[in-house]
């Protein structure tokens, strides 16, 4: 242990603001990218589910859904 007390640790020998701001910015960006990736993934999966539900619904009504991978169709994403 390089510090004798918590106060010592937080003060970082007078360099506290600098050390902590650099670490805080790093932590912020790392956490931010994790949260962003998670949010992105959830949203995509929700979108896909909504779409497959819609298609099942169409199929149940006897309408064939237009396949977006075919020509002359606009991708509805």
């Amino acid at each position, binding site marked *: *242990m*390089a*510090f004798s007390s918590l106060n010592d*640790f937080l003060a*970082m*020998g*007078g*360099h506290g603001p*600098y*050390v902590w*701001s*650099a*670490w805080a*910015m*790093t932590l912020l*960006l*790392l956490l*931010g*990218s*994790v949260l962003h*990736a998670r949010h*992105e*993934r959830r949203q*995509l*999966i929700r*979108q*896909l*589910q909504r*779409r*497959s539900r819609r*298609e099942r619904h169409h199929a149940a009504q006897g309408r064939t859904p237009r*396949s*977006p*991978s075919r020509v002359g169709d606009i*991708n509805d*994403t």
Partner: protein
Amino acid sequence: MWTFIHKLGSPKWFYVISARLLPWFWAAAAVLIVVGSIWGLAFAPADYQQGNSFRIIYVHVPAAFLAQSIFVAMAVSGLIFMVWKIKIADMAAAMMAPLGAAMTFIALFSGAVWGVPTWGTWWMWDARLTSMLILLFLYVGVIALRGAFSSRDSASRAASVLALVGVINIPIIKYSVDWWYTLHQPATFSVTSRPAMPLEMWMPLLIMVLGFYCFFIALTLTRTRSEILRREATKHWVRELAGEGR
């Protein structure tokens, strides 16, 4: 070997395999970064010259390493995409770029903050910081170029070419900036130039560097998987997955 590469290049196969690897990389990243942080912040001895401000290098150096590595990884992915037309490579390249820019920013920010107690100023035209700043511009350029095309295929190719041009230029830029700096300023000591660090000082650094690399791999895999869902939304296997809610 070839069949392996092409199999890896198939989005479905990649999706399945990466799902198995992901937890390990996330776990490794979390453990390494937590251990490295505690060790580096609380247990490593203070530097005899800089005191405790040197603890910034535990985020500065890994971020700077990663910033450069990600650009190289992006260019290699671009090359793989251009030569073998493997779409996964392009998806990964697209997902890496923002993280690379973020890492460059961390390196710049921590370097600038470190400058206050050391040089007494928020910004020094130090060779390393200048190179990092240019790297940030290169990242912004690649991201902006990719966003500027309306056709995604063209965007992917253009970004790949630019990443390759950039990666050839990075060493040239680095050497010329180093040369420029020594010409204008007798070398003062910078964030990372220090003779023989004791083991207790560089072990946490090594752990942090490894942790950052694991973080990069984990995040890129995760986001590439998302990108697969986005780009292959019309494919049958993606729909099946979506139906199961995975």
